[in-house]
Protein backbone atom coordinates (compact mmCIF):
# COMPACT_ATOMS: atom_id res chain seq x y z
CA UNK A 1 0.00 0.00 0.00
CA UNK A 2 2.80 2.34 0.87
CA UNK A 3 4.58 1.73 -2.40
CA UNK A 4 1.43 2.19 -4.50
CA UNK A 5 0.59 5.46 -2.86
CA UNK A 6 4.14 6.69 -3.33
CA UNK A 7 4.05 5.93 -7.05
CA UNK A 8 0.79 7.76 -7.58
CA UNK A 9 2.03 10.81 -5.78
CA UNK A 10 5.26 10.84 -7.79
CA UNK A 11 3.32 10.62 -11.06
CA UNK A 12 1.12 13.52 -10.11
CA UNK A 13 4.20 15.62 -9.44
CA UNK A 14 2.51 17.41 -6.59
CA UNK A 15 3.29 17.66 -2.91
CA UNK A 16 4.88 14.40 -2.00
CA UNK A 17 3.24 12.57 0.80
CA UNK A 18 3.77 8.98 1.74
CA UNK A 19 1.18 6.80 3.42
CA UNK A 20 1.46 8.70 6.68
CA UNK A 21 -1.86 8.77 8.46
CA UNK A 22 -1.62 12.45 9.23
CA UNK A 23 -0.52 15.38 7.06
CA UNK A 24 -0.35 19.10 7.80
CA UNK A 25 -1.34 22.02 5.58
CA UNK A 26 -0.15 25.44 6.64
CA UNK A 27 -2.01 28.71 6.15
CA UNK A 28 0.22 31.75 5.91
CA UNK A 29 0.00 35.10 4.12
CA UNK A 30 -3.47 34.16 2.86
CA UNK A 31 -2.25 30.97 1.15
CA UNK A 32 -2.75 27.25 1.73
CA UNK A 33 0.58 25.42 1.57
CA UNK A 34 0.78 23.15 -0.29
CA UNK A 35 -2.06 24.30 -2.54
CA UNK A 36 -2.28 20.82 -4.08
CA UNK A 37 -1.96 17.94 -1.66
CA UNK A 38 -2.16 14.28 -2.68
CA UNK A 39 -2.69 11.71 0.06
CA UNK A 40 -3.71 8.07 0.30
CA UNK A 41 -7.17 7.06 1.46
CA UNK A 42 -7.41 7.13 5.23
CA UNK A 43 -5.20 10.18 5.73
CA UNK A 44 -6.17 12.86 8.20
CA UNK A 45 -5.24 16.32 7.02
CA UNK A 46 -4.67 18.97 9.66
CA UNK A 47 -4.70 22.64 8.77
CA UNK A 48 -3.01 25.22 10.97
CA UNK A 49 -3.58 28.95 10.58
CA UNK A 50 -0.39 30.96 11.07
CA UNK A 51 -2.07 34.25 10.10
CA UNK A 52 -3.56 36.68 12.61
CA UNK A 53 -6.50 36.91 10.24
CA UNK A 54 -9.06 34.14 10.67
CA UNK A 55 -9.50 31.65 7.85
CA UNK A 56 -11.79 28.71 7.19
CA UNK A 57 -11.41 25.37 5.48
CA UNK A 58 -14.61 25.22 3.44
CA UNK A 59 -15.28 22.42 0.98
CA UNK A 60 -16.46 23.66 -2.41
CA UNK A 61 -19.21 21.04 -2.49
CA UNK A 62 -20.06 21.13 1.20
CA UNK A 63 -18.36 17.83 2.04
CA UNK A 64 -16.54 19.32 5.03
CA UNK A 65 -15.90 22.64 6.66
CA UNK A 66 -14.37 24.37 9.64
CA UNK A 67 -15.50 27.39 11.57
CA UNK A 68 -13.20 30.41 11.65
CA UNK A 69 -9.70 29.41 12.69
CA UNK A 70 -7.95 31.98 14.85
CA UNK A 71 -4.18 32.44 14.99
CA UNK A 72 -2.52 29.01 15.38
CA UNK A 73 -5.88 27.20 15.54
CA UNK A 74 -6.10 23.85 13.79
CA UNK A 75 -8.76 21.89 11.96
CA UNK A 76 -8.52 18.18 11.11
CA UNK A 77 -10.43 16.21 8.52
CA UNK A 78 -10.11 12.50 7.71
CA UNK A 79 -10.38 11.51 4.05
CA UNK A 80 -11.81 8.02 3.77
CA UNK A 81 -12.90 8.03 0.11
CA UNK A 82 -10.88 8.71 -3.03
CA UNK A 83 -11.64 11.93 -4.85
CA UNK A 84 -10.66 15.52 -5.58
CA UNK A 85 -11.64 17.73 -2.67
CA UNK A 86 -11.55 21.39 -3.61
CA UNK A 87 -11.77 23.87 -0.76
CA UNK A 88 -11.47 27.58 -0.09
CA UNK A 89 -11.59 30.12 2.74
CA UNK A 90 -15.12 31.45 3.25
CA UNK A 91 -13.75 34.77 4.47
CA UNK A 92 -11.30 35.16 1.56
CA UNK A 93 -12.79 33.12 -1.30
CA UNK A 94 -9.81 33.77 -3.56
CA UNK A 95 -7.83 31.41 -1.28
CA UNK A 96 -8.34 28.08 -3.03
CA UNK A 97 -6.64 24.69 -2.74
CA UNK A 98 -7.30 21.00 -3.25
CA UNK A 99 -6.78 17.67 -1.54
CA UNK A 100 -6.50 14.72 -3.93
CA UNK A 101 -7.25 11.41 -2.22
CA UNK A 102 -6.19 8.23 -4.00
Amino acid at each position, binding site marked *: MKIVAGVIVALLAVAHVGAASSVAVGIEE*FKFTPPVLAVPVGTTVTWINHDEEPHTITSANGAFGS*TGLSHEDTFAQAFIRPGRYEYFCALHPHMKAIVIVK
Partner: protein
Amino acid sequence: MDRIDRRGFMECMAWAGTGLVWVSTGGVLSSRVIAPAAAAEATPGRFSFVQISDTHIGFKGQANGDPTATLQQVVDRVNALQPAPAFVLHTGDQTHGQKAGAFDTVAEILKGVKTERIFYVPGEHDVFLDGGQEYLGRYGKGTVGGRGWQSFDYKGSHFVGLVNVLKYKGEGMGALGEDQIEWLERDLAPLSPSTPVVVFSHVPLWAVYPQWGWTTEDAGRALVHLKRFSSVTVLNGHIHQVLQKVEGNVRFHTAMSTAFPQPAPGTAPAPGPMKIAEADARRMIGVTEVTYVPGQHPLAVVDSTLG
Protein backbone atom coordinates in the same frame (compact mmCIF):
# COMPACT_ATOMS: atom_id res chain seq x y z
CA MET B 1 -14.72 52.45 -12.12
CA ASP B 2 -11.21 53.76 -12.44
CA ARG B 3 -8.38 51.93 -10.81
CA ILE B 4 -6.27 54.14 -8.66
CA ASP B 5 -2.90 54.76 -10.25
CA ARG B 6 0.33 54.70 -8.33
CA ARG B 7 0.78 58.45 -8.27
CA GLY B 8 -2.76 58.99 -7.09
CA PHE B 9 -2.26 56.34 -4.51
CA MET B 10 0.88 57.92 -3.10
CA GLU B 11 -0.91 61.22 -2.76
CA CYS B 12 -3.74 59.52 -0.97
CA MET B 13 -1.37 57.79 1.39
CA ALA B 14 0.22 61.11 2.28
CA TRP B 15 -3.15 62.08 3.66
CA ALA B 16 -3.50 59.11 5.93
CA GLY B 17 -3.95 59.93 9.56
CA THR B 18 -2.93 63.55 9.23
CA GLY B 19 -6.06 64.96 10.81
CA LEU B 20 -6.76 67.53 8.15
CA VAL B 21 -10.05 68.88 6.91
CA TRP B 22 -10.41 68.39 3.20
CA VAL B 23 -12.23 71.00 1.23
CA SER B 24 -12.96 70.83 -2.46
CA THR B 25 -13.49 73.94 -4.51
CA GLY B 26 -14.21 73.50 -8.18
CA GLY B 27 -12.98 69.93 -7.97
CA VAL B 28 -9.56 70.90 -6.58
CA LEU B 29 -8.70 69.59 -3.16
CA SER B 30 -7.05 71.79 -0.61
CA SER B 31 -6.41 71.19 3.03
CA ARG B 32 -6.32 73.10 6.25
CA VAL B 33 -5.46 72.12 9.77
CA ILE B 34 -8.41 71.10 11.88
CA ALA B 35 -10.17 74.22 13.11
CA PRO B 36 -11.53 74.19 16.64
CA ALA B 37 -15.00 72.70 16.43
CA ALA B 38 -16.47 75.72 18.17
CA ALA B 39 -15.56 77.99 15.26
CA ALA B 40 -18.13 76.49 12.93
CA GLU B 41 -20.57 75.54 15.65
CA ALA B 42 -22.72 78.61 15.29
CA THR B 43 -23.68 77.95 11.65
CA PRO B 44 -27.39 77.07 11.57
CA GLY B 45 -28.11 73.68 10.07
CA ARG B 46 -24.59 72.46 10.71
CA PHE B 47 -24.28 68.97 12.09
CA SER B 48 -21.63 66.36 12.45
CA PHE B 49 -21.57 62.61 12.75
CA VAL B 50 -18.92 60.02 13.44
CA GLN B 51 -17.81 56.97 11.50
CA ILE B 52 -16.45 54.06 13.51
CA SER B 53 -15.17 51.09 11.53
CA ASP B 54 -13.56 47.70 11.81
CA THR B 55 -13.66 47.31 15.57
CA HIS B 56 -12.66 43.64 15.18
CA ILE B 57 -13.52 42.64 18.72
CA GLY B 58 -12.00 39.22 19.33
CA PHE B 59 -8.73 40.08 17.58
CA LYS B 60 -5.53 39.57 19.49
CA GLY B 61 -2.28 40.14 17.71
CA GLN B 62 1.02 41.95 17.70
CA ALA B 63 -0.48 45.30 16.68
CA ASN B 64 -3.15 45.24 19.36
CA GLY B 65 -3.52 42.90 22.31
CA ASP B 66 -6.84 44.39 23.37
CA PRO B 67 -9.12 45.97 20.75
CA THR B 68 -11.80 46.51 23.41
CA ALA B 69 -9.47 49.03 25.06
CA THR B 70 -8.80 50.92 21.82
CA LEU B 71 -12.51 50.95 21.00
CA GLN B 72 -13.17 52.37 24.46
CA GLN B 73 -10.57 55.06 23.78
CA VAL B 74 -12.36 55.93 20.57
CA VAL B 75 -15.68 56.13 22.42
CA ASP B 76 -14.12 58.45 24.99
CA ARG B 77 -12.82 60.63 22.19
CA VAL B 78 -16.22 60.74 20.50
CA ASN B 79 -17.84 61.67 23.78
CA ALA B 80 -15.46 64.63 24.10
CA LEU B 81 -16.57 66.14 20.77
CA GLN B 82 -18.28 69.49 20.96
CA PRO B 83 -20.97 69.59 19.74
CA ALA B 84 -21.83 65.91 20.17
CA PRO B 85 -22.25 63.96 16.94
CA ALA B 86 -25.87 63.67 15.77
CA PHE B 87 -25.35 59.95 15.21
CA VAL B 88 -22.69 57.33 14.59
CA LEU B 89 -22.18 55.06 11.60
CA HIS B 90 -20.46 51.72 12.20
CA THR B 91 -19.19 50.54 8.83
CA GLY B 92 -18.73 46.89 9.68
CA ASP B 93 -16.40 44.20 10.96
CA GLN B 94 -17.66 44.74 14.47
CA THR B 95 -16.28 41.30 15.27
CA HIS B 96 -13.10 39.47 14.36
CA GLY B 97 -14.44 36.41 12.56
CA GLN B 98 -17.69 36.30 14.59
CA LYS B 99 -15.74 35.35 17.69
CA ALA B 100 -18.12 34.13 20.39
CA GLY B 101 -19.45 36.99 22.51
CA ALA B 102 -17.91 39.71 20.30
CA PHE B 103 -21.22 41.24 19.18
CA ASP B 104 -22.22 41.56 22.85
CA THR B 105 -18.94 43.25 23.74
CA VAL B 106 -19.32 45.78 20.91
CA ALA B 107 -22.92 46.52 21.91
CA GLU B 108 -21.88 46.99 25.53
CA ILE B 109 -19.04 49.40 24.70
CA LEU B 110 -21.08 51.38 22.16
CA LYS B 111 -23.87 51.83 24.70
CA GLY B 112 -21.53 54.39 26.22
CA VAL B 113 -21.49 56.65 23.14
CA LYS B 114 -23.27 59.93 23.78
CA THR B 115 -25.30 60.20 20.60
CA GLU B 116 -28.89 59.76 19.47
CA ARG B 117 -28.44 56.64 17.45
CA ILE B 118 -25.93 54.26 15.89
CA PHE B 119 -26.50 52.89 12.38
CA TYR B 120 -24.79 49.70 11.26
CA VAL B 121 -23.81 47.91 8.09
CA PRO B 122 -22.11 44.51 8.28
CA GLY B 123 -18.56 43.54 7.34
CA GLU B 124 -17.66 40.11 6.02
CA HIS B 125 -16.24 39.18 9.44
CA ASP B 126 -19.72 39.70 10.91
CA VAL B 127 -21.55 37.38 8.53
CA PHE B 128 -19.29 34.79 6.94
CA LEU B 129 -19.90 31.97 9.40
CA ASP B 130 -23.69 31.99 9.39
CA GLY B 131 -24.66 34.00 6.31
CA GLY B 132 -25.60 36.98 8.44
CA GLN B 133 -28.08 35.24 10.72
CA GLU B 134 -26.73 36.64 13.98
CA TYR B 135 -25.98 40.08 12.55
CA LEU B 136 -29.41 40.50 10.96
CA GLY B 137 -31.03 39.12 14.10
CA ARG B 138 -29.44 42.00 15.99
CA TYR B 139 -29.39 44.80 13.42
CA GLY B 140 -31.80 43.79 10.65
CA LYS B 141 -34.84 45.29 12.34
CA GLY B 142 -36.02 48.43 10.58
CA THR B 143 -33.86 47.75 7.50
CA VAL B 144 -35.30 46.98 4.06
CA GLY B 145 -36.91 43.54 4.29
CA GLY B 146 -34.72 42.82 7.31
CA ARG B 147 -31.79 42.43 4.91
CA GLY B 148 -29.55 45.06 6.48
CA TRP B 149 -29.67 47.93 4.00
CA GLN B 150 -31.48 51.15 4.81
CA SER B 151 -31.81 54.88 4.22
CA PHE B 152 -32.73 57.85 6.39
CA ASP B 153 -32.84 61.62 6.20
CA TYR B 154 -31.21 64.03 8.59
CA LYS B 155 -31.52 67.82 8.35
CA GLY B 156 -31.99 67.74 4.59
CA SER B 157 -29.22 65.21 3.87
CA HIS B 158 -29.99 61.70 2.70
CA PHE B 159 -28.06 58.75 4.12
CA VAL B 160 -27.93 55.30 2.57
CA GLY B 161 -26.39 52.23 4.26
CA LEU B 162 -25.59 49.43 1.82
CA VAL B 163 -24.66 45.78 2.42
CA ASN B 164 -21.90 44.46 0.17
CA VAL B 165 -20.62 41.46 2.11
CA LEU B 166 -23.47 38.97 1.83
CA LYS B 167 -22.64 38.05 -1.75
CA TYR B 168 -18.96 37.78 -0.94
CA LYS B 169 -17.97 34.93 -3.24
CA GLY B 170 -15.89 34.25 -6.31
CA GLU B 171 -12.81 36.38 -6.13
CA GLY B 172 -13.55 37.67 -2.66
CA MET B 173 -14.86 41.02 -3.74
CA GLY B 174 -17.84 42.76 -2.26
CA ALA B 175 -21.09 42.81 -4.18
CA LEU B 176 -24.43 44.56 -3.72
CA GLY B 177 -26.70 42.38 -5.82
CA GLU B 178 -29.59 43.14 -8.11
CA ASP B 179 -32.29 43.59 -5.43
CA GLN B 180 -30.31 46.17 -3.52
CA ILE B 181 -29.32 48.18 -6.58
CA GLU B 182 -32.97 48.29 -7.72
CA TRP B 183 -34.00 49.41 -4.26
CA LEU B 184 -31.33 52.13 -4.29
CA GLU B 185 -32.63 53.48 -7.59
CA ARG B 186 -36.17 53.69 -6.17
CA ASP B 187 -34.91 55.16 -2.90
CA LEU B 188 -33.04 58.00 -4.61
CA ALA B 189 -35.69 58.72 -7.25
CA PRO B 190 -37.76 61.29 -5.30
CA LEU B 191 -34.74 63.35 -4.18
CA SER B 192 -33.78 66.66 -5.75
CA PRO B 193 -30.25 66.82 -7.22
CA SER B 194 -29.25 69.38 -4.61
CA THR B 195 -29.83 66.93 -1.74
CA PRO B 196 -26.50 66.03 -0.13
CA VAL B 197 -26.19 62.24 -0.22
CA VAL B 198 -23.98 60.12 2.03
CA VAL B 199 -23.56 56.44 1.17
CA PHE B 200 -21.89 54.08 3.63
CA SER B 201 -20.93 50.43 3.30
CA HIS B 202 -18.16 48.14 4.50
CA VAL B 203 -16.17 47.18 1.41
CA PRO B 204 -15.08 50.22 -0.65
CA LEU B 205 -17.43 51.11 -3.49
CA TRP B 206 -14.42 51.85 -5.68
CA ALA B 207 -11.62 49.67 -6.96
CA VAL B 208 -9.01 50.26 -4.27
CA TYR B 209 -7.10 47.03 -4.92
CA PRO B 210 -9.07 44.20 -6.49
CA GLN B 211 -6.14 41.77 -6.09
CA TRP B 212 -6.87 41.80 -2.36
CA GLY B 213 -10.63 41.88 -2.84
CA TRP B 214 -10.71 45.59 -1.96
CA THR B 215 -13.51 46.51 -4.32
CA THR B 216 -17.22 46.00 -4.90
CA GLU B 217 -17.74 44.32 -8.24
CA ASP B 218 -21.13 45.87 -9.05
CA ALA B 219 -20.55 49.27 -7.41
CA GLY B 220 -20.59 51.03 -10.77
CA ARG B 221 -24.19 50.01 -11.28
CA ALA B 222 -25.11 51.65 -7.98
CA LEU B 223 -23.02 54.78 -8.47
CA VAL B 224 -24.69 55.57 -11.78
CA HIS B 225 -27.80 56.47 -9.79
CA LEU B 226 -25.78 59.00 -7.77
CA LYS B 227 -24.41 60.94 -10.74
CA ARG B 228 -27.18 63.54 -10.82
CA PHE B 229 -26.53 64.70 -7.24
CA SER B 230 -24.26 67.66 -6.68
CA SER B 231 -22.73 66.34 -3.43
CA VAL B 232 -22.12 62.66 -2.78
CA THR B 233 -19.90 61.32 -0.01
CA VAL B 234 -19.09 57.61 0.09
CA LEU B 235 -17.77 56.29 3.42
CA ASN B 236 -16.27 52.81 3.62
CA GLY B 237 -14.13 50.64 5.91
CA HIS B 238 -12.59 47.21 5.32
CA ILE B 239 -9.07 48.29 4.37
CA HIS B 240 -8.06 49.75 7.77
CA GLN B 241 -6.45 52.91 6.41
CA VAL B 242 -7.45 56.29 5.11
CA LEU B 243 -7.66 56.55 1.35
CA GLN B 244 -9.55 59.18 -0.54
CA LYS B 245 -10.56 59.71 -4.12
CA VAL B 246 -12.66 62.26 -5.92
CA GLU B 247 -14.53 61.30 -9.05
CA GLY B 248 -16.71 64.08 -10.41
CA ASN B 249 -19.26 64.93 -7.74
CA VAL B 250 -18.47 61.84 -5.65
CA ARG B 251 -15.95 61.81 -2.83
CA PHE B 252 -14.83 58.39 -1.67
CA HIS B 253 -13.26 57.99 1.74
CA THR B 254 -12.15 54.93 3.69
CA ALA B 255 -11.75 54.95 7.47
CA MET B 256 -9.14 53.58 9.81
CA SER B 257 -9.92 50.61 12.01
CA THR B 258 -10.18 51.05 15.76
CA ALA B 259 -8.25 47.79 16.18
CA PHE B 260 -5.30 47.31 13.80
CA PRO B 261 -3.90 48.67 10.53
CA GLN B 262 -3.58 46.76 7.28
CA PRO B 263 -0.76 47.30 4.77
CA ALA B 264 -1.09 49.79 1.95
CA PRO B 265 -2.24 48.08 -1.24
CA GLY B 266 0.49 45.97 -2.79
CA THR B 267 3.12 46.72 -0.16
CA ALA B 268 2.90 43.27 1.46
CA PRO B 269 2.39 39.71 0.19
CA ALA B 270 -1.16 39.70 1.56
CA PRO B 271 -3.65 41.88 3.38
CA GLY B 272 -4.38 41.24 7.06
CA PRO B 273 -3.22 42.69 10.36
CA MET B 274 0.16 44.41 10.17
CA LYS B 275 2.67 42.87 12.54
CA ILE B 276 4.02 46.00 14.15
CA ALA B 277 4.48 47.28 17.69
CA GLU B 278 1.34 48.51 19.46
CA ALA B 279 2.74 52.03 19.85
CA ASP B 280 3.26 52.27 16.09
CA ALA B 281 -0.16 50.79 15.39
CA ARG B 282 -1.84 53.46 17.54
CA ARG B 283 -0.76 56.02 14.98
CA MET B 284 -2.63 54.06 12.32
CA ILE B 285 -5.95 53.37 14.05
CA GLY B 286 -8.64 55.82 15.03
CA VAL B 287 -11.94 57.40 14.15
CA THR B 288 -13.52 59.69 11.55
CA GLU B 289 -15.64 62.77 12.15
CA VAL B 290 -17.73 64.17 9.32
CA THR B 291 -19.26 67.63 9.38
CA TYR B 292 -21.93 69.08 7.15
CA VAL B 293 -22.03 72.85 6.86
CA PRO B 294 -24.91 74.31 4.85
CA GLY B 295 -23.75 76.15 1.75
CA GLN B 296 -20.48 74.18 1.57
CA HIS B 297 -20.93 71.31 -0.81
CA PRO B 298 -18.35 68.78 0.29
CA LEU B 299 -18.68 67.42 3.77
CA ALA B 300 -15.59 67.95 5.91
CA VAL B 301 -14.02 64.61 6.77
CA VAL B 302 -11.50 64.55 9.61
CA ASP B 303 -9.55 61.44 10.54
CA SER B 304 -7.79 61.29 13.87
CA THR B 305 -5.50 58.59 15.19
CA LEU B 306 -5.19 57.25 18.71
CA GLY B 307 -1.40 57.61 18.87
